């Protein structure tokens, strides 16, 4: 038999995991990182689910119209926590990396199933973090699937695989977290505390560099914010322009009429007629699912006044349809709490000027505590749906 020279025998499967020499890896370190990571994943799952449920409400779901900034907080938290997961996940996976090369790969069928579930867990975690980052950077081409639904279903896979993982490892986690805090052996590398501090510093830097997309006072400091709440037409960012929505001609047509349909009558109102109705002003944020948000002063006609004019009551829902033809978000339905809220406007003006075409000229929906994709722009039709 040919003898393999010594350095190469280190690459034998049975010897691979001995290549890793850091004495920093320990169940204590992994459990501590895992505890923080678990909380972060739970926050992301919960806030993400809220955002999903607002857009596709299940029968039991109720979402209020106040506080005005609640969705802004939950969705800002979703994206900020998702970004904070990057250093946590990196350190956590590093801390268990040698186990990937464990030899033999499994002891018995149960162990094999458990290890396979780890592939699902790691794959789902990497999927969620990377697709989230690509989505806020608006870089869709590497994801040749529909981000929204894929991110939603994978969130269930991730939270499920995480629960299985915690269930399997619970005795080890408990023992590790209860163990007295012994100093890591004196090595030439980093200490456990040093590593946790480093992860904390990375989270801090990433947060400061991006959170200004939703916290306006930090906008000047957030050099890597995908949006700047101060930048855009009329000082406000835009997610979809009139050109890309293909509505420029229809929105600027002088023959434009808003159709308001209710149980008592149907109205067809020109822009001048809308402007002659009672005008109200509201300070409301545009809050994007991508985590940015910006407050503006909107003025226009109250949706509930329009609903009442065609015979609608406080208990009605209101369906708003855009001039935009081919969009998933062409139609949005205001649930009764939002439809009846005096802050919910069919806005004609922002910051005292007529709406920019990219902000939804001739008129757009703006309601408190709602995702931006549901704040329909270039409104063509308003329908009162009595229960």
């Amino acid at each position, binding site marked *: 038999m040919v003898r393999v020279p010594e350095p190469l025998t280190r690459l034998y499967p049975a010897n691979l995991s001995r290549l*890793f020499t850091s004495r920093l890896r320990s169940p204590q370190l992994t459990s501590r990182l895992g505890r923080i990571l678990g909380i972060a994943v739970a926050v992301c799952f919960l806030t993400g689910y809220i955002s999903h449920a607002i857009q596709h409400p299940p029968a039991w779901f109720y979402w209020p119209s106040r506080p005005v900034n609640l969705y802004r907080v939950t969705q800002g938290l979703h994206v900020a926590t998702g*970004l904070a997961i990057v*250093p946590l996940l*990196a*350190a956590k996976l*590093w801390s268990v*990396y040698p186990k990937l090369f464990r030899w033999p790969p499994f002891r018995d069928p149960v162990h094999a199933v458990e290890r396979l579930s780890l592939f699902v867990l*790691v*794959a789902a975690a*990497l999927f969620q973090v990377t*697709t989230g980052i690509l989505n806020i*950077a*608006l870089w869709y081409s*590497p*994801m*040749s*699937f*529909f981000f929204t*639904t*894929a991110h*939603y*279903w*994978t969130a*269930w*896979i991730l*939270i*499920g695989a*995480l*629960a*299985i993982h*915690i*269930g*399997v490892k*619970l*005795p*080890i986690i*408990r023992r590790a977290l209860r163990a007295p805090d012994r100093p890591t052996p004196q090595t*030439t*590398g*980093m*200490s456990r505390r*040093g*590593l946790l*501090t*480093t*992860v904390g510093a*990375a989270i801090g830097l*990433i947060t400061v*560099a991006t959170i200004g997309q939703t916290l306006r006072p930090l906008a000047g400091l957030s*050099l*890597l914010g*995908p*949006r*700047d709440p101060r*930048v855009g037409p009329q000082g406000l*960012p835009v*997610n979809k*322009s009139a*050109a890309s929505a293909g509505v420029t001609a229809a929105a600027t047509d002088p023959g434009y009429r808003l159709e308001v349909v209710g149980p008592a009558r149907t109205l067809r109102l020109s822009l001048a007629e809308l402007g002659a109705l009672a005008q109200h002003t509201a300070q409301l944020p545009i809050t994007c699912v991508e985590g940015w948000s910006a407050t503006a002063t909107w003025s226009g006609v109250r949706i509930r006044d329009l609903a009442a004019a065609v015979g609608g009551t406080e208990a009605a829902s209101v369906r708003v349809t855009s001039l935009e033809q081919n969009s998933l978000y062409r139609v949005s339905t205001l649930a009764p709490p939002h439809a009846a809220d005096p802050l919910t406007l069919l806005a004609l003006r922002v910051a005292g000027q007529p709406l920019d075409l*990219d902000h939804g000229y001739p008129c757009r929906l703006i309601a408190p505590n709602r995702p931006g994709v549901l704040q329909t722009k270039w409104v063509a039709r308003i329908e009162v749906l009595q229960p």
Partner: protein
Amino acid sequence: MTATRHPDRQTTWIRRLLVAAGVLAAAYGIIGVLTDPSVYLPNYARYTITVLFGHDLLVLPAAIVVGAVLTRWLPAWARPVVQGALFVTAVLTVVALPLVLGFGRTADNPSALPRDYPRGYAICLAVIWLVTAGLLAVRALRRHRSTTDPNTREHL
């Protein structure tokens, strides 16, 4: 060891519940991925396999090797600080890269990705490495003091 061999009944039930709930949630998600036509299963599978193996067999081992090589010739007192700085640099790059490349920009919407991201990334890197230089200077100074002043030696 006793905890694994003789788990108390409460722990056993918590573990069973976690695994059962986890299996249900993961199954719900997997069924969703398999049946939702907008997910485009082949593309989804290709992407997932790419990020999983890309991370486990390419990015993470590369990061470990680069970190080991770059800190190999450093004195022991400087190594942890530089290792930390390399870690922060790496994870910041993961977040910043799609913005720096800027493929998400469109001509008709200048408010999307409005900043100069290469500049922002460079400033972040400068901050990381300036802080690192500061920490190294403090460590070097302390070391110098402790070797010259016998009164402070016992504190270190």
